[in-house]
């Protein structure tokens, strides 16, 4: 196993750890803002995976282009999601997912 693949494995372990943290946060919390923070950590893991893959394969320019696209999607998602969270807070008076019982559907 050459040096770049060893580095890839170490980085991949960190990606897995970040994914576990993100999913743990999403599944264990009842706060909507903290759920978004968990999603953000998952996006960080994906960003790290793309950068790692680009570094190992030598396609760094392509990896950077994809990461920039990912960042644009991420920021739009967060802005819209926080808007929804504020709307839910004003409508229901809470951010606790256990108390959001008046959703239609």
């Amino acid at each position, binding site marked *: 196993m050459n040096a770049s693949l060893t580095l890839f494995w170490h980085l991949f372990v960190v990606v897995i750890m970040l994914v576990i943290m993100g999913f743990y946060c999403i599944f264990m919390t009842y706060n909507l803002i903290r759920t978004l923070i968990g999603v953000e950590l998952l996006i960080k893991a994906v960003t*790290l995976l793309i*950068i790692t893959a680009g570094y190992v394969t030598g396609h760094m320019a392509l990896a950077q282009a994809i990461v920039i696209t990912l960042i644009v999607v991420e920021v739009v998602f967060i802005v819209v999601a926080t808007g929804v969270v504020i709307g839910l807070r004003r409508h229901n008076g809470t951010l606790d997912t256990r108390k959001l019982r008046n959703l239609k559907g």
Partner: protein
Amino acid sequence: MQINHTLNSIILIALVASGLWTIMTRSLIRSAIGLALTSAVLTMLMFSFDSWLAGVFELSVCAGLISVVFISTISLTQPLTKAEVIKHMKDRLERFMYLPFLIIIVGVGLSLLKVNFNFQLPSPEIETDARKVLWNLRELDLLAQVVIIMTGIFGVLILFREMRRK
């Protein structure tokens, strides 16, 4: 080479530690700051891998703009009362106390695992400049980004227009 490897290892440990702190901290504001710290550490790793452009985007947008959005959202929602905070702290500790152990076990276990990679790495692209890739190879991505940004703008406009009407 050895210095670079040590530096990368320190950055990776800092990345895991900041991610863990983001999840484990009780205060939402500290959690948002922890997320910004995670982005900043990730940026350091990007700079270490010579991906300057993506690093600048990560630092300015993720560590900067998204933190501002989170902190604004937290400030727009009312804080809990003292009794609710105490109840919430005990409840949170019970749910999140297993995470550090889980992360350490998974990290150590996977690091000790001997994995043999047999895949052939493809040769690097001719283009080495991210700007050229963005403008010449991935034009459709740029168009999609414009559409996504417009979707976000209209989404927020619709959300806040509904609120004004109410």
